[in-house]
Structures are given as C-alpha cells and as structure tokens.
C-alpha cells in the first residue's frame, strides 16, 4: 500500500477488503469473522492475514469445513446481538449454505415480525478468468437476487469495496458481499483514508456518453470501461454504469442514462438466462420502451454450468474488452 496523499492510499481490492475488515474489528467488539482458513492461514487470498494474532481466536474463527453452519452460526450470533462477518471461501461453495441464506437469514426479521433481526455480512469471492474451473469460478448473484430479505453488493473498485463493505457491516439486515476474485490484485485504486460509507442501491456513472448506455458490475465493469475508451478514440460516445449494488438496484441512474442515450447494453459474466440483465431489461422495457432506439442487448455468460479448466473453455465462457467493444460498436451504429 502506498500513501499517495494525506487523504488517500493506493490499494488493490484485497487490501481494501482487509483494511475495511481490520477497521471494523478495531471499532466494534461485537464484530467477528468466521470461515474456513481465516485464522493462521489468513484466508486463502490473505485477506485476514495476521488478524488472528491481533484479534485472537475468539474473534477470528477457523471453522470446520461446513458451509451451512458457517452461515447458520453467524445467523444465530446476529440474532443474539453480535455483528458477524461470515466468509464462504469461494462462492462455488455457498450452495450448502443456500437454505441458511435464503430460508433463514433472509426471513428472520420478516418471520418474527421484527422481533428478531439478522445483521449479518456474508463475504465471498466469485467469478472467473483465473483458471478456476467448474468449482472455483462461478457467479452466484442471480441465485440470490430473487430473494426478498437479502441485499447484494458487487463492487469493482477498491474505494467502493471500502465504502460498501462499511455500509454492509453497519446494515441491520443480511448482506451478501460479492468480491470478484480476478479483480483482487488486478485492480488498484485510491482509497480515501478514514471511515466512510457508500449507500447501497446507488450506481456509479464511470464514464459519460451520448450514444449508448452500458450497465455492468464486477470485473466486467473494467473491461466495459476499456472498450468504451477504445470507441472514444473513434469518436463514439458510450456511457458506462457500474451498478455496485445488485439488490437494491439503482433504477434512477439506469433510466436517466437510457433516456439520454436511447440504447442499452448489459454485460455480465453470469449466465444470460434469468440473470441480472433480464431484470434490468424488463424494468427498462416497462418504464422506458418508447425512449429506446434499438432493442436492448445482453452480452452475458453462456448457458453452461461454468467455465472449464482448459484455457479455451475458460476463454470461450468469458467475454473480453474486444468482444464488448464489438457489441458496443454494433449498438451505436444500429
């Protein structure tokens, strides 16, 4: 980490997650972390490196390999006044805890009519492009964004990681915090010093443009930005929106942009069918169909279980800045 000014520090996404968790543990005795290999190993990505030495095994809990109870125990802690941060080592391993997230955490407040609450953060690294194969590369957001009672965040930049993770930790309801693992060390950026929060449900217009709106989140935000800048050199003007938060999602920013550019392209790594893009498309069709000059287009993951280990299989699954630029060009010229 390099301090570039008195007010900010350059970090990658791993460092931003780590710094934010560190601050939360320092500031609130009710906060603790539980997950697989978060103790002496310091998490497989070194996010909790040295935490156990500083905060002790009571607060940095190396759990047995049992994802359902990692989340379930965190739910119980949250119901009884603690502020647990549960970690699922890879998003692919979240399936055994599906009921605890969807059937329990999301319903605690609702089913007890507000008597009990579940202020819980579940962090997990997701996404591909890292040779993660079928079980270390999936995107899980679409499985959860259907569920009332949950909030879902998927930041792309270190400064957003910090502000949104702080918000998630403060939130009185369960938040699924998705960290794209390829961005962990690839993406660096200035992170303001000191405590700050970014509200959930506020998208970020990363680049303004006039001829096309591109909506994305996670790793693909960076690629979409690269692609939009390529087009800029050819005089084509593309607006790029980083959703940052998937549930709640920022309707206003999307609609304002679409009404201006009159064209919408959604790019995400997760499968196209039933994905986040489907909901955005439906919303825009309901609210702004007659403002559109072209059919909505989605550039998303293919309808296969996940990317294979062999490089051609991964490359075929993943999009690229080039493919995004091509789709943008076609949309602008439509």
């Amino acid at each position, binding site marked *: 980490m390099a301090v570039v000014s008195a007010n900010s520090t350059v970090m990658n996404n791993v460092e931003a997650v780590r710094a934010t968790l560190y601050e939360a543990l320092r500031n609130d005795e009710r906060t603790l972390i539980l997950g697989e290999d978060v103790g002496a190993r310091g998490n497989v990505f070194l996010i909790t490196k040295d935490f156990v030495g500083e905060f002790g095994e009571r607060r940095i809990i190396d759990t047995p390999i049992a994802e359902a109870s990692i989340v*379930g125990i965190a739910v119980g*802690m949250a119901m009884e006044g603690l502020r647990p941060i549960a970690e699922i080592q890879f998003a692919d391993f979240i399936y055994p805890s599906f009921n605890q997230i969807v059937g*329990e955490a999301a319903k605690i407040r*609702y089913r007890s*009519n507000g008597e009990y609450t579940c202020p819980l953060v579940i962090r997990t690294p997701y996404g591909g492009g890292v040779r993660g194969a079928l079980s270390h590369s999936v995107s899980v957001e679409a499985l959860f964004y259907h569920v009332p009672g949950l909030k879902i965040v998927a930041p792309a930049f270190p400064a957003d990681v910090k502000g949104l993770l702080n918000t998630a930790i403060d939130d009185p309801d369960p938040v699924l915090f998705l960290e794209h693992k390829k961005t962990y060390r690839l993406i660096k950026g200035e992170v303001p010093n000191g405590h700050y929060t970014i509200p959930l449900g*506020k998208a970020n217009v990363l680049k303004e443009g006039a001829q096309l709106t591109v909506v994305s989140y996670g790793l693909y935000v960076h690629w979409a930005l690269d692609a939009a800048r390529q087009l800029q050199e050819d005089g084509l003007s593309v607006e790029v929106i980083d959703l940052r938060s998937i549930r709640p999602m920022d309707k206003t920013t999307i609609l304002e942009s679409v009404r201006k550019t009159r064209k919408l392209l959604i790019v995400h790594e997760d499968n196209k069918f039933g994905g986040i893009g489907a909901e955005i498309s439906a919303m825009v069709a309901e609210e702004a169909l007659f403002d559109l000059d072209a059919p909505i287009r989605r550039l998303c993951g293919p309808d296969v279980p996940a990317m294979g280990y062999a490089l051609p299989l991964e490359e075929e699954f993943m999009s690229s800045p080039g493919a995004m630029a091509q789709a943008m060009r076609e949309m602008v010229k439509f």
Partner: protein
Amino acid sequence: MDLNQRTEIEERHGLTDEQLRAMFRNMLLQRQLDNRGFQLNRQGKVPFALGSEGHEALQAGAAMAFNRGRDILAPYYRDLGLCLGIGLSPYEIMLSIFARAPDHNGGRQFPNHYSSKAAGLMSFSSILAAHLPHAVGAAYAMKYRGESGRAVLATCGDGTTSEGEWHESMNFVAIHKLPFVMLVENNEWAISTPLDKQMAEPQIWKRAAGYGMPGKRFNGFDPIETYAVVKEAMDRARGGGGPTLIEGTCYRYLAHSTDDNDMTYRTREVVTERRKQDPVPAFEALLVEHGVLTAQDVDELRKSVLQETNEATDAAEAQPYPSAADLYTNLYEGAWQPWQS
C-alpha cells in the same frame, strides 16, 4: 422406568411439591391446548394444528430446568410444553393457532412456530435442523461475552438428527465447548418414517462419544428424571463445562399434524398399546399416591386448565387478523423497494 410400577418418588432432585404441581399442570395444559387446536381444525376454524401428545412429561420436566430471563431456548415445532414452561401463555399459543395480529409472528408463521425475544425463545422455521446452527451462534455469543451462568437449550426430534446441520452443530459446540445442550425428543416417528428407517443405531445419545462430549439417554415419560438429566446438562453448560447430548424417549400419540393420517403407516393397536404408558395419567397417579395432590386437587386443576384454555381461545379468536398491508412490513429495517429511485 414405568411410573405405574413406581412405589415412591425415590429421588425428587430437589423439586418442591409446588414445582411438581407446576409440572403436572403444564402437562394438563399441553394436552388441553393440543386437543383444542385439533378441535378448532375439525370445526373449520383454523386450517392447521399440530400436537405434542406424548411429549408432555419430557417437556414439562425440561422446562423446569430452564432459567427464565437467562437461558435461551431454540425449540422445534413440537415443543408446546417447553414453550409454555418457559413462560408463553395459552393466549400467546392461541394467537399462533388463530394467526391473529397480536401474535409474536404477526400471523405469518405456521402454528407452533413460536418466537418471543422477551422469553428467550429463538425464532425458527419449518426446515428441520436449520435452527440448530442459530442456537450454536447464540451459545457462542454467550461465551464470547463471558456470560457465565447462561446456556442454550436446543431441541429437535429423532428425525432431525439425520440432517447435516445437526452434525455440523454438534461438532462445532464440542470444538468450542459452548454452553449448549442438545435435547433430542425421540418419539420414534419422523412423520411416517419409523426409527429403523432413519438410523441403524437407534440410540442417538451414543453419538455424543463421537463428538467428544457427554451423552445420556433418559425416560422422557418421567418428568422428574427428565428434569434431573436436563438440569445436570444445563448446569454443566452454565458452569463452563461444555455441551451435552441428551436423548429423551417418548412417543407421538397423534398423527404428525391435522393434515396427516397416521393409520396409513401404523396401526391403531400399536398406538393403543403405547397409550398404556401415557405419561399424563401416570404422573397424576404418582403425585396423588404420594400426597402431592389429592383427587380433588386434580379435578380443580383440570377445571382451571380447561377454563384457561377456553378464555385463551375466546380472547385470541376475538383478535383481528393482520391486515393486507401487513404483508409488506418488517422485511428490512425501514421502507424497502428492490429498485431504488
């Protein structure tokens, strides 16, 4: 131990006459409320009811070992007597059955899915064993905050011990020596599936050794023995001695629920035979025999329990349903839309 064969209350485990009477009254109240739920269903007044008949002694005894205002109960849906025993009123039970607005859950949950933060009763769903990690988390919170003298009493039926989260919970509480007691109410039935189709080793308590914790089996038809075993385990947990697995044997006399027909998988004769061990008349006989209660006391108790049930029924039925607008409240803190504008 067959209570009918018992000639004296050999060991009261410190229970006073007043406590013994309270346990018996709890048992009578359980049965009365259970019957009322089934009656209301047959009258078409409520869509569903679920009974705990056969569990009365076990639950009255276990509840007596619970310290109100300190311990936490993480029950399952066949725990009417435990919930009464830790302080829920018949009126609260009836609000749950009638799904009325003042119900703790606002009429959202099935009957018998009680919840009361004030009573230390953790909210739970119908997904079996899903509540156990929550109970573990609560026990962790107690230990984390250094709250000695408190413990979590978690319960489940025999069927639930097949769930993965049952194992995960037992494993975790043992590793961390949490103030936790796992009370299995073994009534031999998982809806229609008998014990021998649930597990090859029917003595569930023996699993304790595999987790590295003490385990014990007891006669759940004997409320005094139940109290003693649960209290021993809870005291160990409260004192920092870690978790215990205890298994109380009992029997499910009624069908699983008002929507179940148990005659499709067991015979009337079998149930009638098991009824001979019914813990409610057995405990009554014991208390009368030893002068803790007179026959007249029993009559008066029955009358007061019936009156209390009637009053609770009428009072709850008179309450309004939640309004349609209540469907949308208490999902998150504050107002909510998935689309933010």
